[in-house]
């Protein structure tokens, strides 16, 4: 496959996984930084907190974390490049089991990267995505990291706290994916 075709095609796990893992030594080498992205949610709150509001958690010099905000900006640009400029023209190559499940859930498949029923502009989709986002924001700050900071960086550097976090994350995901998500579709759509 030529270079250009590689840019448009989705990458197999054995290409993308190691590239993600390389972020850990790369960020250490750039400037002793712990690879992770969800801290930016805190910095974005700190940036916009009015002076009159006194929430201690957001009273710190967020400008010291400019490097992290720049990293997040890079991730946004990377998403634009990979998802718009070099967009994969084909739908996600899911397993037969997953395709069967999604049709059973009444989620339209074969339309691309994301299910329109959750990602297009409707009152219901925005409500669900916002509510789930609240849990993601609350949980990642409570745990002090997300998939990148705990599952990748924390486990790569053998930190026991991250083992606890990853167990919590996976348990929570199993619970909602099995007992909440399928019912959302039958309830609302």
């Amino acid at each position: 496959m030529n270079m250009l075709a590689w840019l448009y095609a989705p990458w197999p796990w054995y290409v993308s996984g190691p590239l993600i893992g390389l972020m850990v030594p790369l960020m250490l080498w750039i400037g002793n930084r712990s690879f992770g992205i969800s801290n930016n949610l805190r910095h974005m709150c700190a940036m916009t907190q009015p002076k009159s509001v006194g929430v201690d958690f957001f009273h710190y010099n967020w400008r010291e974390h400019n490097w992290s905000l720049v990293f997040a900006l890079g991730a946004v640009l990377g998403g634009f490049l990979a998802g718009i400029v070099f967009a994969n023209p084909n739908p996600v190559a899911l397993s037969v089991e997953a395709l069967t499940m999604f049709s059973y859930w009444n989620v339209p498949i074969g339309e691309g990267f994301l299910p329109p029923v959750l990602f297009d502009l409707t009152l219901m989709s925005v409500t669900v995505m916002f509510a789930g986002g609240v849990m993601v924001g609350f949980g990642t700050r409570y745990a002090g990291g997300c998939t990148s900071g705990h599952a990748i960086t924390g486990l790569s550097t053998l930190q026991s706290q991250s083992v606890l976090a990853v167990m919590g994350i996976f348990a929570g995901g199993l619970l909602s994916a099995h007992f909440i998500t399928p019912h959302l579709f039958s309830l609302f759509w």
Partner: protein
Amino acid sequence: MRFLPYLLAGLAFGFVMIKSEAASWYRIMEMFYFQSFHMFGIMASAIATGLTGVLLLKRYGHLSTLDGEAIVIPQKAPGRYNYIFGGLIFGLGWGIIGLCPGPIFSLVGMGSIGALAALAGALHGTWLYGLVKNRLPH
């Protein structure tokens, strides 16, 4: 210029989030139902690569950062309940919206309405945590 390496690293990360399909809701559901090896392969090979990279950095102790500082691996704060309960709450959200924070940022770059709504929610969730932090077990 000082921030250029971070911009490029972030760009690479955001690009891989999309190309790996880790940012696809479909892939995350497929993972939580154990219907494909794809996401597990990504996680396992990422951790193996990170582990190897960190071991090499440690082994060649004379290596320094771009600024010439000695490499020190940042440690997570002590705690127990915050990691378990925080992880659990994050996971509950992840199993519904199929996005963790990395993909949220990269999908915002794709102009996804759902990801923008998730980002707005995540900022509110972060704010909420800041408000009640001192009343939670850590």
